[in-house]
């Protein structure tokens, strides 16, 4: 018999471990489920509905990933809730917390499926594991299985409880974040370190906000009852709306840069959509080569604008393909473009990359010329698109790759060509799926 090897071991492992966790929870606490449903007739539906709603109203980050801070914050509230004014105390064990949150997440996944949206099972598993970690730490504290609330008796202060809750919430989120990064790195075939850095870099601020909301709900509940939930979501909603504005504006900036890239296309100097294709290809290669989000954005802008210098040409070069132009013409176009871009201080790096995109790799090797990696990526991506004419017919792709391999080490950086090969071979490599679930 042949052993079945899953295509994506990390994702499969996360799924299996999460499933085991849920089964264990069912085994240890399943018998209490009936009592739980019977005694928390108000609390339970409110929490589940809040998680489902939070999952439906998501926010899209600049990288194209989705986050659901309202749902995560509510899930963490389930982890920490104790006494609730006007309701029976929510003293359930960690297993029940896992069951309740899993149930809510599955319901939300169902809603998404019905509405025709993507449901990522491995990422769902990562969330269950993150919440499970926090629940275990919060509700099975110490050898006697005491909860974080019991810290009050030891230290005579609820402040300590609050700090411990925030800490545990943070740890649970970090577990989830690391898992998501590992799953993403596996799928995009990018280095794990870069995936972790991106995940932390983009998500850290919102994670920080989410980590305190769960404890906030739990700590206000003894006074405000279930009203604590909507009240505590106000500051989160404010953070949410601020992040939303920032994200929308960043998308506008990208559109604006893309407009600049279209000047040469509209004028017939470059092929239609050439800049967009080079930018997409460069981004995917950049991810494979481990560039961070900020570097990727600069790379994207530079790739979009790499042919801008052509607008000053008297006559268009045939097909706009700079790879076929004389080296001195290529340099002139690049430096003309860079000079235009330099009008914007904030785009200084973009201009540098555009300027350096024509330098052959041989000068880097033999004369130790400093050429930034993004510029080497653009050089290679541009050559590929010029040579293949933007077609993805296997014959065209093969011909383009052959020409590029001829210039390997002389014209093009071997590492970059390697990344290009991987990206061209597999359409999933280095691609962010729009609307993919991120950690929270």
């Amino acid at each position: 018999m042949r052993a079945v090897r899953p295509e994506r071991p990390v994702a499969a492992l996360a799924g299996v471990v999460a499933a085991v966790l849920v089964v264990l929870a069912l085994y240890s606490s399943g018998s209490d489920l009936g009592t739980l449903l019977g005694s928390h007739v108000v609390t339970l539906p409110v929490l589940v509905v809040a998680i489902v709603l939070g999952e439906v109203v998501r926010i899209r980050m600049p990288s194209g990933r989705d986050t659901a801070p309202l749902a995560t914050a509510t899930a963490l509230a389930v982890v920490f809730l104790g006494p609730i004014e006007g309701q029976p105390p929510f003293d359930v064990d960690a297993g029940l917390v896992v069951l309740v949150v899993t149930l809510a997440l599955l319901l939300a996944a169902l809603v998404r499926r019905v509405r025709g949206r993507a449901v990522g099972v491995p990422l769902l598993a990562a969330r269950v594991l993150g919440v499970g970690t926090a629940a275990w730490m919060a509700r099975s504290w110490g050898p006697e299985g005491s909860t974080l609330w019991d810290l009050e008796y030891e230290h005579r202060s609820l402040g300590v409880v609050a700090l411990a809750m925030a800490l545990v919430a943070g740890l649970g989120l970090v577990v989830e974040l690391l898992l998501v990064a590992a799953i993403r790195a596996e799928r995009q075939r990018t280095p794990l370190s870069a995936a972790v850095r991106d995940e932390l870099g983009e998500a850290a601020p919102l994670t920080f906000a989410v980590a305190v909301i769960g404890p906030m709900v739990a700590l206000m509940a003894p006074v405000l009852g279930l009203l604590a939930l909507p009240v505590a979501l106000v500051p989160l909603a404010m953070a949410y709306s601020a992040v939303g504005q920032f994200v929308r504006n960043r998308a506008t900036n990208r559109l604006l840069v893309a407009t600049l890239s279209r000047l040469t296309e509209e004028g017939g100097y470059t092929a239609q959509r050439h800049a967009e294709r080079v930018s997409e290809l460069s981004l995917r290669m950049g991810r494979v080569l481990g560039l961070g989000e900020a570097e990727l954005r600069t790379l994207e802008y530079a790739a979009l604008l790499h042919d801008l210098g052509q607008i000053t040409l008297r006559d268009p070069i045939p097909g706009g393909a700079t790879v076929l132009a004389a080296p001195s013409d290529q340099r002139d176009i690049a430096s003309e473009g860079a000079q235009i871009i330099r009008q914007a201080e904030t785009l200084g790096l973009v201009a540098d990359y555009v300027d350096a995109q024509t330098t052959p790799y041989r000068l880097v090797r033999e004369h130790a010329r400093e050429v930034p990696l993004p510029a080497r990526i653009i050089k290679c991506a541009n050559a590929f698109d010029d040579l293949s004419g933007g077609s993805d017919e296997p014959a065209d792709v093969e011909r383009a790759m052959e020409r590029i391999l001829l210039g390997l080490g002389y014209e093009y950086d071997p590492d970059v060509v390697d990344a290009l090969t991987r990206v061209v071979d597999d359409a999933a490599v280095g691609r962010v799926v729009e609307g993919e679930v991120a950690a929270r």
Partner: protein
Amino acid sequence: MTERAPDERGGGPDSRDTATQGYIAVVVLLAVGLLALVWHELDVSLDGGFVVFVVLVVALRFVPEAVVEGRTQLSLSSTLLLSCQAIVGPAGAGVLGALLGGLQGRSLPAQYRVFNAAQNSVMGTLGGLAFAATGGDVGVETVGEALRSIALPLFVADLVQVVGNLVLLSGVVMVSGTGSLRTTTLPLLRSTGPAYVGYGSIALIMVVLWEPAMIGATSALLVLAPLLVAQWAYRQHAEDLRGQDQVLQVLVAAVEAKAPHLAGHSARVAALSQRLAEDLGLGPRGVADARLAGMLHDLGQTTMPTGLVRESTTVAAEAGYPARGAALLTHLGFLAGTLDPIARHREALDERPDGSTLVARIVGVSDTYDLLTAIGDPDGRVLTPTEALDRIRTRPGVDDRLMAALESAVLRAEVRSGA
């Protein structure tokens, strides 16, 4: 609280300065008087909570407020001032307000910092009194009590804060003569009013956590974390907006690389269009549209053959550059108002005034004036301002109001350049 520091624009006559200083002195006296009264009437004790607030206020000095397009987004100091009115009482809030106002805005002139300190102090004391007067009490146990004795009085204190700020700032505007009430106070109310609802909710969380939920000072940590995140996002947002402006400059640079004879033309047309739009009484959106349309009116030329563009603007216009420029920008939401003026700025002057929008005619007039006086007419001759004005007056799309605005703008420019 320091949403809008008094403007520093212009030296102004000395009497204005004296009046402003007098006004500041009155507000300071009010602050001190209120504090003394409260101190005398109430049994004031400044406890551990007060010390925590002092630490927070001092720490806040190192967190810059997030300012997006001239407006403070989500002011942490307002939230702190509001919650301390309930937690440490009117006297403590008055002292903290003074500290808060005085520490902020390191770059502001001393007299404005004194004003901010006095203003915040008055707000703190009055808000604290309002909280107490409306039955504010933090020793509650049930939801009903929490709503009645914390939420409602906090809401009243919040309202006092909004109204008080408005009154004190209107005073500054009237006394210093830096603007009219209509253009400063109303927009301030519109922009900060909803924000204060948010501050109220957050203060409510802080007070509930601090007192009845017995978390104490740690609650500040929980409450401020999400707000710091929001501020971070707003600061990024502000930075991106600056970046956006710079990318627009790159679009202009692309035009000038294509048509070197137009160097500086786009910037001048943008400035003149903005001036005309302001003089003709357009709102902030209309003024912005006029400026942006003036800046980008020649963008379409970048998509045309270089030889043709370098021949002359008239030749390029015959080849349809205005429509091409507008087509390039259709999918950019924030430029929606510029599309029509960019597409029609040439023909707007050839039709009757009611045939096209005011912004299109403003950009058309600005463009024509600058082409005639700086770039040269179709025969390559550069006209004097008077000759250019005479020629523009005869165009069908130019009515008396537009002409008067253009003439006064030209006159002012001449006076400024000492001609």
